[in-house]
């Protein structure tokens, strides 16, 4: 099984994915956020390269809709930085899936990210990526308990 074959699957259903993400606008509108088709295509391209970089393969609709729903109510995201932040969060998400050795489920990792982003990081993506999540994933790799569904006060 070569990598090309895997990547073909990633490329499947792009249209459906695009529609799903555009449909998220209905919900995010109340927070003053929306994505154009062009934005979605940029994000989907980011996703492809991010997956490739992190050597991961994704099935189904992908993480973007979940990411959008989780972060749209953040006080640190507004229309001007929406696409950039979601794109960056997507990269961080895949990176930390690997770093946490897949020990965290998608929802758990998203919860951590959201809580830290709105809380301790105060909207700083660098602090989220380089300090807070790094600490969590190090703890997970060391086999310490308490990182699945727990609170993040100590960070």
């Amino acid at each position, binding site marked *: 099984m070569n990598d090309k074959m895997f990547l073909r699957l990633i490329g499947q259903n792009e249209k459906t994915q695009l529609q799903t993400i555009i449909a998220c606008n209905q919900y995010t509108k109340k927070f003053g956020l929306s994505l154009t088709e062009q934005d979605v295509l940029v994000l989907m391209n980011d996703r492809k390269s991010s997956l490739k970089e992190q050597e991961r393969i*994704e099935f189904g609709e992908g993480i973007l809709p979940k990411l959008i729903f989780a972060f749209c109510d953040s006080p640190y995201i507004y229309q001007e930085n929406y696409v950039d932040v979601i794109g960056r969060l997507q990269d961080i998400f895949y990176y930390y899936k690997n770093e946490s050795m*897949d020990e965290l489920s998608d929802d758990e990792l998203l919860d951590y990210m959201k809580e830290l982003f709105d809380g301790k990081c105060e909207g700083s993506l660098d602090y989220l990526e380089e300090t807070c999540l790094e600490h969590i994933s190090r703890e997970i790799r060391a086999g310490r308990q308490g990182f699945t569904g727990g609170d993040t006060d100590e960070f």
Partner: protein
Amino acid sequence: MNFSEEEILQLLSDRVRKYTSNESSSVSYEKARQLMGSILFCMEDAQSCSQNNEKKLTLFHKKMNAKEAFEVGLNKKKVKIKETQKLFETIMKTFCTYQNQCYYDTIIKGMPGFFKTYDVEYNAQNHILTLDYPLITAPSLNLKGIDLIYEYLKRTWIEQCFLSSFSYDNILDILKNYHKKHEELIFNICRVVFRNAIGCVLLDKSIYELMIQCDERELLKRLGDSKNVAELEAILIEAFERMLNLHFNNNQEYFVYFLNEIKDFAFEIKSNAENNHLDKIFLGSTTVEPQNQVIYKDGSPMEDEKLRELIDGLSQIRFLTEKLDMIKTQVKSLEDLKEVLKECFFDEEFLNVFALLSTNEIEVLKEEIIQKIEYNEELEEWEIAFKKEMITRESKNKEEKRSIT
């Protein structure tokens, strides 16, 4: 059985979802490869099953889809795990390691671990164990997962059955002759026993004795010298058949299993006969080497600081007698003595220190220096002096002996 890539990828997508309990939308390439490998491994089994089994042929003609083929294959693997477990239990009832550590590790320690951790659902192609103990005829390299383990155990069972025909003590005697530390070696025990048994058949003696004496080995050498490899092979096959007829009820399973061994065996007899080393394959009690190893227990070395103080002290003393007195009273181990020799003594002084050594200590130092020379390591000054001294002592001894005679 051919399936489209899309069909297989859809199956992979289902398996990934099941593997992650639908909690993760993505997996690493490595994990996806593992899952895909597992799917293909199971599907291979469905294919062979539909080709071999008439009942399944109908299912095959109905054109199984990828998912069905995978399910059939997976179920077949699960049945095979049960069969393998049964076979393992049967083997364990009478299993004997003949004191071999590798055999113990592979079967007694490794196999239960395999059954505990083998993941037929998501990693069926991974047999986990390295199966270090070598068999006479190793299973095909194409085998993987439970198929490999089953085949390995089946062959182990044949070897164990063969070995159980001989007395445990006789086998151990043979193994001791094979190597002093046979317990630690990674080698096939059955091969050693089989070869000696065939040797016994060639000598027209009971195979259960196993041991081949020195004079008997001479007869085998004559045989090896007079025939070429092909002739030897024919003779060995004939002897093997005779052995099976007489002692193993013409067991065809043994015949097929050991037949591959005969070719190598014939070749080895020929080359060992030419080099006069038949004692390496036809083992017997007379090949035991006399044990002249020196048993020496060194005293405990002093702490680094104390040793440094002693060396400093010795360097400041002018008179040799005082130096020797200090060594006598303070140095309790050869390790320390070597350090002192290196730092505080020169030229003629060495001989005076060597005079203080006991015979055992001299033997130990001699062995170490010989090893250093063998490995082309540079000798210290005192070691060169020691070597010279030993040569002169030996030549003196020889002269004395000559004068006595």
